[in-house]
């Protein structure tokens, strides 16, 4: 088991590198997540791994440690009510406010293994089929290249495709390859995947009209939450909409957004300016 001192070091690295806030009671969780990595590095336990990394000052290994701690739980069409709101009001409103030839720019920030941006791509394709779509670009980013590789492959297990996808959507948009299911090439081509750390400036990625940053900030401490919200705001168009996770109500943290369509969907405050 990790010692308290070792846990404190891991927690500090996790916070500094990816914003992950680890409180005391997570010690057993961290230990369990790091044990497989320790074994791969020929260490007897997580504690030995941390001692070794400290001795060697190995940045790559810290990278591996932090990657092993990331919370990546996700599924297709997570929080169905939010996708309904996107399809019925949020996206139509955004499209209406723009010239017909303009491309709506969408960012899935913290996309994990891709279920979120692919759900968006499916939703937008269905909207187009109903004659109420528009041109859309989807950028999906995450800190974990391990998760991004999986996302870009478009391959999902039978278990994964049965969480959140109706059977009609599954057979309309996926094909079976052996034991796995692969999303259609046209949908894979509709999403661009890139590595991005939400702790660094994002303005160069934007401006985005719609940002989904769901179930990411909940693992951050409050200061990182606020600063990340403001970095996101700085990468958005003036009337852009930000969708947080269904249980993430962070409207009061910053003046950069104001609530719209309920607490977890916010509109960029057009008058807000980032402090220099």
């Amino acid at each position, binding site marked *: 088991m990790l010692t308290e001192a070792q846990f404190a070091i891991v927690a500090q690295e996790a916070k500094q590198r990816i914003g992950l806030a680890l409180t005391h009671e997570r010690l057993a969780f961290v230990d369990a997540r790091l044990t497989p990595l320790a074994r791969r590095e020929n260490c007897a336990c997580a504690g030995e791994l941390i001692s070794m990394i400290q001795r060697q000052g190995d940045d790559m290994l810290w990278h591996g440690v932090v990657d092993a701690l990331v919370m990546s739980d996700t*599924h297709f069409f997570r929080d*169905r009510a939010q996708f309904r709101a996107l399809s019925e009001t949020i996206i139509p409103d955004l499209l209406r406010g723009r010239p017909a030839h303009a491309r709506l720019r969408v960012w899935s920030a913290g996309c994990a293994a891709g279920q979120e941006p692919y759900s968006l791509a499916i939703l937008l394709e269905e909207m187009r089929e109903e004659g109420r779509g528009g041109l859309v670009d989807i950028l999906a980013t995450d800190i974990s290249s391990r998760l991004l590789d999986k996302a870009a492959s478009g391959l999902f297990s*039978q*278990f994964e495709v*049965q*969480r*959140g*996808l*109706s*059977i*009609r959507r*599954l*057979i309309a948009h996926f*094909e*079976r390859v052996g034991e796995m299911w692969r999303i259609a090439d046209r949908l894979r081509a509709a999403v661009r995947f890139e590595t991005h750390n939400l702790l660094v400036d994002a303005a160069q990625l934007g401006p985005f009209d719609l940002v989904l940053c769901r179930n990411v900030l909940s693992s951050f401490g409050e200061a990182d939450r606020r600063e990340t919200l403001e970095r996101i705001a700085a990468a958005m168009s003036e009337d852009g909409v930000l969708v947080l996770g269904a249980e993430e109500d962070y409207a009061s943290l910053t003046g950069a957004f104001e609530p719209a369509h309920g607490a977890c969907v916010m509109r960029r405050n057009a008058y807000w300016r980032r402090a220099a």
Partner: protein
Amino acid sequence: MKSCLVVDDSRVIRKVARRILEDMSFDIEEAADGLEALQACRRSMPDAILLDWQMPVMSGIDFLKTLRKESGGDRPVVVFCTTENDVARISEAIKAGADEYIMKPFDGDILHSKFSEAGLV
């Protein structure tokens, strides 16, 4: 309380499904093959049917085709739950009137997700 008829020739699977669905507040009845299921439906139409494919006496797909022709047989929401995972088989089930489709093995998350897709929760 909504009712669900669990149709599977494996007693173990029926038990697993029953436990999950009871937690989701369904009132459960069980049948071991398509014919038993049809008899149960004629006594009283359930709100939902969780249906295996391969079963002795009457298969799931034959049961479904017969059910959809019975009076009131269009009402139950039918969720297939089978090891058949071929796209052709899935399409066949949908064409015969299935509302949702689960590929075994399943767990509580999948059952919950699929029952929501079918508008049952």
